[in-house]
C-alpha cells in the first residue's frame, strides 16, 4: 500500500509567497548575518528598524523601552477603542443620555466589555505616564542634541496630542466625573487673552459642557487627533533613522 505523503506546507508556493526571503518562518532560514538582516528588512513592521543597532541601545537602563511601549500602548488603545466604538453612541440629549446608558451596557451586557473598557482607561493613563517618562529619558541622555533637535520638537507635539487624546476621551462616559473634570479643565480657556469667548466656544461647542461638546470631543477622540498623531508618529520614527538611530553612548 502506497503511503500518501502530506504536502510540506512550508515548501508550498502559497507559503513562500507570503513569507519573503529571510523570514524566520520560511524554510531554509539560517541563523546567519544575511538572514538576520533580511528578517528585519523583509518585514513591514520590523523594517521600521535598521538591520543593525548600536549595542548600548539594548541596555534596558538606557531607554527603559519607554518610546516603544508608548507606541505599543497607542496600538493597544486603538484596538480596544475600536471595540468600544461598536457599542457606544456619543449622544446625551435631555431625557435619554445614550452615551451613559451605552457605558452601562458595555460594563454589564457586552462580552468582555468591562475588561476592554478597563484596559482602555488604564492604558490611556499609562500612556500619558510613559510618554512623559520617555521625554525625561530623552532629556537625561541628551538625545535632543544635534542632529536630533527637530525630533524633540515633534516629540513635544506628540506629548501634547497624547494629553489631548486622553482629555477628550475623559468626557465620553458622560458621568459626573467626566463632565466636571472637563468643566474644570476647560474653564481655564475662558481666561485666554482677547479670545476667551471664542476659545471656549470652539472647545465646547457652546458656553458650557453640553451634548454638543460630547459629539465634538468624540470626533476629536476617535478620528481627528489619532489621525494627526499618526502623521507625527511617522515623522518621529522616520527621523530617528535619518538622524542616525539611537543616541549615545553616553
Amino acid at each position, binding site marked *: 500500500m502506497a503511503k500518501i505523503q502530506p504536502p510540506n506546507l512550508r515548501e508550498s508556493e502559497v507559503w513562500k509567497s507570503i513569507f519573503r526571503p529571510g523570514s*524566520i518562518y520560511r524554510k531554509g532560514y539560517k541563523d546567519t548575518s544575511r538572514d*538576520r538582516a533580511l528578517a*528585519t528588512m523583509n518585514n513591514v513592521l*520590523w523594517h521600521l528598524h535598521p538591520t*543593525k*543597532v*548600536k*549595542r*548600548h*541601545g*539594548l541596555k*534596558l537602563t538606557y531607554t527603559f*523601552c519607554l518610546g*516603544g*511601549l508608548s507606541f*505599543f*500602548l497607542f496600538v*493597544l488603545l486603538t484596538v480596544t477603542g475600536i471595540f468600544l466604538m461598536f457599542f457606544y453612541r456619543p449622544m446625551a440629549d435631555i431625557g435619554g*443620555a445614550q452615551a451613559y446608558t451605552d*457605558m*452601562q451596557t458595555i460594563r454589564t451586557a457586552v462580552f468582555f466589555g468591562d*475588561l476592554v473598557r*478597563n*484596559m482602555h482607561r*488604564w492604558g490611556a*493613563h499609562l500612556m500619558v505616564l510613559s510618554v512623559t517618562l520617555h521625554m*525625561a529619558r530623552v*532629556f*537625561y541622555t*541628551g538625545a*535632543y*542634541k*544635534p542632529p536630533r*533637535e527637530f525630533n*524633540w520638537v515633534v516629540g*513635544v*507635539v506628540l506629548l*501634547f496630542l497624547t494629553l489631548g487624546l*486622553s482629555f477628550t476621551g475623559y468626557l465620553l*462616559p*458622560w*458621568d*459626573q*466625573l*467626566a*463632565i*466636571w*473634570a472637563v*468643566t*474644570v*479643565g476647560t*474653564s*481655564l480657556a475662558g*481666561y*485666554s*487673552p482677547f479670545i476667551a469667548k471664542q476659545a471656549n466656544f470652539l472647545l465646547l461647542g457652546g458656553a458650557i*459642557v*453640553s451634548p454638543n461638546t460630547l459629539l465634538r470631543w468624540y470626533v476629536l477622540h476617535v478620528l481627528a487627533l489619532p489621525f494627526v498623531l499618526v502623521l507625527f508618529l511617522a515623522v518621529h520614527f522616520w527621523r530617528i533613522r535619518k538622524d542616525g538611530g539611537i543616541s*549615545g553612548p*553616553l
Partner: protein
Amino acid sequence: MTWEEVNKDMDAYQAALTAQTSSGVDRRVAEGRARRAGIRAYLKAHPEEEAAHAAEARSAAPAGAAAPAAAGNGGQAPAMAAPAAGGAVAVAAAPITSAVREAPLPTGNIPEPKKGAPDKHRLLAIVPPEGIQRVEREQGDRVHTWPHLLLEEFIAMAILFAGLLVFSSLINAPLRELANPNLTPNPSKAPWYFLGLQELLRYFHPMVAGIVIPTFILVGLAAVPYVDRNPSIKPGDRKVAITLFTILFMFGAILTIIGCFFRGPGYNWTWPWTQGVFFEL
C-alpha cells in the same frame, strides 16, 4: 555581461601608463586610462575588427533594430550600437567616426574632503573613479536588530500587556452616576495630568496659571534643543541642564501629587491618611 579580455596595443598601454603615473595620478585611475588608450590604438590599427565589434553590439541590442548595415559601410561602423527605434536606414546613413564611445576626458582632480565633513560613506550609484573617496565609516559596536532588539521589545510588550490585563481584570475603571450639570461634586478635579495646573490656580491668577504657564511650558520644552547648545551628552558636562530639568520636573510632579492626594472638599488641604483621598482616575 561577463568580463572579457580584449586586445590592446601594449606599447600604447605602457606609454599611457607611464605618462599617467608620472603625472601623479592614482594608480587605479592611471591603469584605466592606459587601458583605454591601448584599446583605441589597437582598434585604429585593425579597422576590420572594429567593424565586427560594432555589428556584434548592434545585433545584441534589443528592439526591432536588427540592422546589419555596417557590412556595406567601408569597414566603418556606426558610433552608437543601439539605434533609435525603426531607424535601420537612418543608422546606415549616419556619419560614422569611431566604435568607441567618446566621453570627456576625466579631469584628474581628486576632490579633497571638505573640512569638518562627517565620516560617512555615501551611496552613489555612478561615480567617476576619481570621485570615490575611500573613507570607511566607523561601524561601531553594532548588533543585529533581529533577534536582539526585537526580542527585547517583544518581552517588554508582553510584560506590559500581561500587567495591564491582570490589573484591568482586578480593578474596575470608575463610572459614577449620570452627568448632572446642576450638581457640582465637591471637590471637582481635572484629570490627574492637569492637577498641577489646578494646584497653581490656588496661587496665581487664572490667566497666569491657565494660559501663561502652560504656554511657557510647551514653548519652553520645544525650545530646549535650541537653547541648550552644549554639544556634550556626558552627564558630567551637563550639570546645569540636568539640575534645571530635574528641579522643574520634580516641581511639576509634586504639584500634581498635591493636587491628586492632598486636596479635599472645597479644594482645601487634606491629609490623605486622616481625611481620606479625594481622587479618581
